[in-house]
């Protein structure tokens, strides 16, 4: 029961993260939703699978995947954001009302 709750939560996060890629205006804001919401969603999904599996050797391996995701995800999105900044892409700004 709790496991399925986690899995559904993960799927909802991934769905809205992907929706954000389509809706947001520029590379930085798209990066925000695509990588981050997906990371949170994937972590919720993996935790759900771990709870479903119980204390097992398989869930130990899932834990290793989870740790790997936590370490590599920010590095990848940071690399994309930094290369965009170095190329001189200006962040999108909301138009101020005069």
């Amino acid at each position, binding site marked *: 029961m709790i496991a399925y709750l986690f899995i559904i939560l993960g799927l909802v996060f991934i769905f809205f993260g992907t929706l*954000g890629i389509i*809706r947001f205006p520029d590379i930085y804001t798209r990066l925000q939703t695509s990588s981050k919401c997906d990371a949170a969603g994937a972590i919720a999904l993996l935790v759900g699978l771990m709870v479903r599996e119980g204390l097992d050797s398989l869930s130990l*391996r899932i834990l290793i995947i989870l740790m790997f995701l936590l370490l590599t995800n*920010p590095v990848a999105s940071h690399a994309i954001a930094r290369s965009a900044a170095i190329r001189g892409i200006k962040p999108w700004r909301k138009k101020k009302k005069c």
Partner: protein
Amino acid sequence: MYKKSVRLVLTFFVLMSFWLVLSQNLQPASLLIGAFFSFLVALLSYDFFIKPDEGMRGRAIRTIWLLLVYVFVLLYEMFLASIDVVYRVITMDINPEVVMIKTDIKSDLGIVLLANSITLTPGTITIDIEGDHLYVHWLYARTTNFGHAAELIKGRLEHWLGRIFI
């Protein structure tokens, strides 16, 4: 200060436990191969894995314990922020800004972990680091004030990391 042999043995045990978890096999041949390669890799890499000037034994246990607590704090923050970003996706109510914040953490590993945590928390990405200044892209900037923005972004994360790395 750890002795050379202690560092070697610690690295060997970490590698060997990884082998056991991943191979799921207790046959003598598998164990032998694992032990042989763990020893070989430990011999090559113990100097990078545990630095010679890395604190005392009691402090290492405390650091690992605090890191575990930190992972849970980070996960909690991540989920709160994810819900916030989902709300922003639905309403398209965004106000992106690049702000510069300053951190009080001195050690390199601590700054790297802080930058990664800021990136991992939805709504903020670390774009660049210069010394102890971080350039952060913020999805919904509530303020552009130097000190106030730092307080809102780092908040609890830096408090916990500061206890680990000083």
